[in-house]
C-alpha cells in the first residue's frame, strides 16, 4: 500500500539520519583526539585519525542520503571541491595575505619548526627556517600544478598528433613511430628524468618539457590505437570519397573522436606527473630550495627532522596525497565516460 511504503521510508530515513549524525560526531571526536593528543606513538595517532575520518565521511554520506533522499558520490564531490579550491588559491596566491614562503631573510624573527596551530599566524606551522608552511604549500601547489598542467598539455598535443598521424598513415611512419615510442618507454621514467636533469637547468619551463617527454609515448599509443579503430569506420571512408584531403580527414573526422579518450588519459596523467615532479624535487634534482614544491618540502624532513617535527613531512604530504587522489578520481570518472577500453587499467 502506498502509505505503508512512505511510512517505512520515513522510518528508514530517520534511522539513516541518526546513524549519520552519530558517526559524524564519533568520527570527529576520534579524529580530533588522534590529531592533538601528545600521548600516543605516531602510528597510534595516525590510526585513530584515519578511523575517525572514515567515520566522519560515512556519517556525512548517510546524512546526505537522509536529507536528500538520494545517494550522491560524496568522494567525487569532495575531490572536485578540493581541486577547485586548490587551483583558485594557487592562482590567487600572490594577492592573498599569506605568510612568507621563500625569502629567508624576512623570517629571521619567526619561530622555527613550529607545530600547526590553527588560529595563529602560522596555521600549518613553520619549517626550520621560519618559513610559513601554509604559504609554502600553496606556492608549492602553484609550481607543481603549473608544471604538470603545462607538461600534460604539451604531451597531449604533441603525442596526440603523432599518434593520429601514425595511426592513419600506418606502414612506414607507424613502424618508425613505434620504435621511437618503445625506445622512450624502455627507459624507466624516473631514470629518464634524472638523466635529463643532469644537463638541464631546473627551471619551471625545463621541468615541464622533461615531464612532457614522459607523457608523449603513452599519448601516442592511445591516439594511435583509437585512430586505427575509428579509421576503419565508414564515415572516414565517406569523407575521403567526398574529396577530403588526408589532413582534413584527420583534423575533422578523426581528431574530434580521438580527443575524448585522449583527454581522459590526460587527466589520469596529471596525477602521475605531479608525483614525478615531486619525486624529482625530493631527490634534489628538481625545483631547488628555497622555492617550495611539495617534493622538496618533504625532503626537509630527512635526517631526523621528521621524528621531532612530523608536520614538516605531513603537511606537504597531505597536500600531495589529496591532490593526487582527487585527480586520480577525476581521471577515472572521465575514463569511465569516454574511454572504457582503458578504463580498467
Amino acid at each position, binding site marked *: 500500500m502506498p502509505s505503508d511504503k512512505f511510512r517505512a521510508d520515513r522510518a528508514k530515513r530517520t534511522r539513516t539520519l541518526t546513524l549519520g549524525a552519530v558517526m559524524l560526531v564519533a568520527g570527529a571526536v576520534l579524529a580530533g583526539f588522534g590529531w592533538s593528543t601528545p600521548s600516543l*606513538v605516531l602510528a597510534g595517532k595516525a590510526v585513530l585519525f584515519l578511523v575517525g575520518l572514515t567515520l566522519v565521511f560515512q556519517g556525512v554520506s548517510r546524512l546526505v542520503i537522509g536529507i536528500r533522499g538520494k545517494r550522491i558520490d560524496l568522494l567525487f564531490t569532495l575531490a572536485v571541491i578540493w581541486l577547485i579550491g586548490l587551483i583558485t588559491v594557487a592562482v590567487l596566491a600572490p594577492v592573498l595575505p599569506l605568510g612568507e614562503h621563500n625569502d629567508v631573510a624576512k623570517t629571521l624573527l619567526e619561530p622555527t619548526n613550529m607545530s600547526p596551530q590553527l588560529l595563529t599566524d602560522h596555521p600549518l606551522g613553520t619549517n626550520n627556517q621560519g618559513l610559513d608552511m601554509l604559504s609554502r604549500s600553496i606556492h608549492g601547489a602553484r609550481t607543481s600544478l603549473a608544471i604538470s598542467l603545462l607538461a600534460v598539455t604539451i604531451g597531449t598535443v604533441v603525442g596526440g598528433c603523432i599518434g593520429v598521424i601514425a595511426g592513419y598513415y600506418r606502414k612506414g611512419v607507424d613502424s618508425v613511430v613505434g620504435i*621511437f615510442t618503445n625506445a622512450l618507454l*624502455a627507459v*624507466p621514467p624516473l631514470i629518464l628524468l634524472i*638523466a635529463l636533469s643532469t*644537463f638541464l637547468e631546473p627551471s619551471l619551463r625545463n621541468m615541464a618539457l622533461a615531464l612532457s617527454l614522459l607523457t608523449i609515448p603513452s599519448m601516442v599509443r592511445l591516439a594511435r590505437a583509437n585512430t586505427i579503430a575509428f579509421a576503419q569506420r565508414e564515415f572516414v571512408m565517406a569523407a575521403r570519397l567526398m574529396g577530403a584531403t588526408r589532413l582534413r580527414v584527420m583534423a575533422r573526422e578523426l581528431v574530434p573522436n580521438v580527443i575524448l579518450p585522449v583527454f581522459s588519459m590526460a587527466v589520469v596523467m596529471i596525477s602521475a606527473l605531479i608525483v614525478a615532479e*615531486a619525486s624529482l624535487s625530493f631527490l634534489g634534482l628538481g625545483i631547488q630550495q628555497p622555492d617550495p614544491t611539495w617534493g622538496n618540502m*618533504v625532503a626537509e624532513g630527512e635526517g631526523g627532522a621528521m621524528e621531532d617535527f612530523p608536520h614538516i613531512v605531513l603537511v606537504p604530504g597531505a597536500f600531495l596525497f589529496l591532490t593526487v587522489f582527487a585527480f586520480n578520481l577525476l581521471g577515472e570518472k572521465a575514463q569511465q565516460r569516454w574511454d572504457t577500453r582503458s578504463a*580498467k587499467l
Partner: protein
Amino acid sequence: MRRISLRIGELIAVLFVVSFGVFAMVTLMPGDPAVAILGEGHPPQDYENLRQELGLNDGLLHRYWDWLSGAVTGDLGTSLVPPQTDVTERILGALPVSVELAVLGLVIALVLAIPLAMWSAAHAGGAIDRMISATMFATLSVPSFLAGLLLIMIFANGLGWFPRAQWVRISEDIPGNLHHALLPAIVIAMMELALFTRILRNDLIVTLNEDYILAARAKGMPPWRIMVTDALRPSSFSLVTLMGISLGRLIGSTVIVEYLFALPGMGSMIVTSANQGDYPLVQGAVLIVALVYVVVNAGIDLSYGYLDPRTRRVHA
C-alpha cells in the same frame, strides 16, 4: 616463426635507439669530462691529451660505434671517477641489489593481491569489496617517497623493527639480507599491490560473468574451486602483462627506495654518477636497464602462448 623474428628485429631497433639516445644525451652534459677527471688547475695541454686519449675529439657516430662494439662484447668502458673501476663490474655489483628489491617487491605484491582480488570479486559490490577498493585507490595516490618516509618513520625509527640503511649481500647472510630488504620491498610492493588488485579484481568480475562459469556452477562445483581453477587463469593475462611491465620498470624505478634506504642498487648508482658527470657509467647503466625491460617484455609476449591456448597456433 616469422612473428618471433619480427619481434626480435623490433627489439634490436629499440635498443639501438635507446643506446644512441643515451649516448647522445650524455654528450650534451655541461662540463668537460677531462676537467672532471683531472680536476681544475691543470695546464690546457693535459686536458687536451686526456681528451685525445679518451677519444673525445672523434665524431659522435664514431664514438658511438666504438662504445657499442665494446658493449656487445661486455666492455662498457671505465668509470671516470676514482676509483676508476670497470663499468661492467660496477653494474654487475649493483644490478643484483635492484633485481632482488624488484622481485621481492613484486612477489609480496602478488601474494597479497591474488587473495584480495579473489575475495573482492567474489563479493563484488559488498562492503568489504568497496573498502578494499577504496584502500587500494588511496594507496595508488601516495607517492612512493612519501610512503617510504612514513614507513621509515613508523617502523624503522619509531618501532625499531627494521634497519634504516646499509645492505647485507645475499651471498653473505640470507636472513640478514632479508631483514634489510623487507621494508624497502614493502614500499615497492605498495604501489604494485594497488595496481594488481584492481586489475585482477576487474578481470575476475568479467570472467565470473561468463557462461562457462555458470555452467561450472551448474555442474555442482563449489565456488572457491570455480574461482581458482576456472576463473583465475583466463583473468591472469592482463595481470601477467602488468607484471612484466612492472618488473621491467622497477629495475630502474627502485631509485627512490634505494635513495631513501641508502642501498647500493642501480638506481642510486645512476643518480650519483649522473651528479658526478661520470658518463660511461650512466650510459652503461641505462643501457642495461633498458635491455632488461625490453627482454622481459618480449618474454611476457611469448608466455601468452602458454597461458592462452587460443594464441598457441598461428590463426588460420
